[in-house]
């Protein structure tokens, strides 16, 4: 009998500390599997953010650096420029990359830094207790928008990968989801491509992943996935939003 699915070498034996049903774990597994498949676990340096993913260094087998809130890409830039032969990726939530770290996210793309960023979009601040994020949907209830997000006073949700896709230095931008086995496979393909873009030195690559937060959404894990399909997918465009000609030939 052959083992057809087991824990990848890219992950340590440490159990994830996320809430039950949180898809952070799925996304981390996919990244770790890609690192193993490309045989770059020893070569890779990850940069962890502040937020639920702040414990990343415990879960990945590769090297890790912790950054201040929102500054993961600035730290990643420094690492990549000092050690250009290493593979560098940042793993950030939507609050980290699209609110506190917006300046870095935009300029890292504008400079075309040869790093890879994974953005986890669950439309809410998870670790701090479910506050409204830039990606919170219109009319969505959070602890700081208890009557629903009103665009008149609180603004509109931001489709961040589309913003990055409009910047010339970004070579590859994909928006994917982990709500179903089919989309999980697509997510893995996008992450693999993003790392290959970096290896080929073609520019900045970003993969935005629609994720769930059952605890702060107040739903069961199974209902959360359906909520994501019903509410987030119509707002956040999925697919490969940007691919330069060089990337298409990879």
């Amino acid at each position, binding site marked *: 009998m052959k083992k057809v699915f087991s824990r990848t070498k890219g992950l340590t034996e440490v159990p994830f500390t996320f809430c039950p*049903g949180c898809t952070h774990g799925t996304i981390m597994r996919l990244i770790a599997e890609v690192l193993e498949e490309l045989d770059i676990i020893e070569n890779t340096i990850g940069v962890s953010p502040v937020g639920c993913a702040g414990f990343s260094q415990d879960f990945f087998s590769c090297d890790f650096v912790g950054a201040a809130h929102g500054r993961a890409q600035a730290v990643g830039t420094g690492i990549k420029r000092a050690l250009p032969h290493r593979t560098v990726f940042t793993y950030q939530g939507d609050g980290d990359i699209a609110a506190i770290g917006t300046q870095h996210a935009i300029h890292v793309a504008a400079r075309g830094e040869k790093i890879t960023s994974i953005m986890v979009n669950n439309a809410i601040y998870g670790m701090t207790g479910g506050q409204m994020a830039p990606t919170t949907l219109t009319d969505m209830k959070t602890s700081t928008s208890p009557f629903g997000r009103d665009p008149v006073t609180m603004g509109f949700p931001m489709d961040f990968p589309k913003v990055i896709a409009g910047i010339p230095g970004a070579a590859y931008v994909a928006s994917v989801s982990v709500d179903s086995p089919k989309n999980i496979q697509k997510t893995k393909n996008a992450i693999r491509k993003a790392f290959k873009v970096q290896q080929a030195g073609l520019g900045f690559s970003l993969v935005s992943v629609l994720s769930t937060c059952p605890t702060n959404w107040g739903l069961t894990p199974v209902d959360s996935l359906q909520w994501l399909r019903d509410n987030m997918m119509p707002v956040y465009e999925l697919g490969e939003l940007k691919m330069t000609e060089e990337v298409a030939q990879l």
Partner: protein
Amino acid sequence: MPKAVVIEKYCKSCSLCVDICPKKIMAISDQTNEKGYFVATCIDQDKCIGCALCATVCPDVAIDVYK
């Protein structure tokens, strides 16, 4: 014979495997792990087809699949 094995220390009882299993043979048992979660288990290994959908959706990488 295909089989799905839940590694109990990783399971958090989220039920995503129970929902996705096409043969409906995953269930939450009445046994708890060291953290106090009621662990998922395969209740009828004979019916398992080794599709690994349960392992694919498991956010805690708690399922090994053999085929």
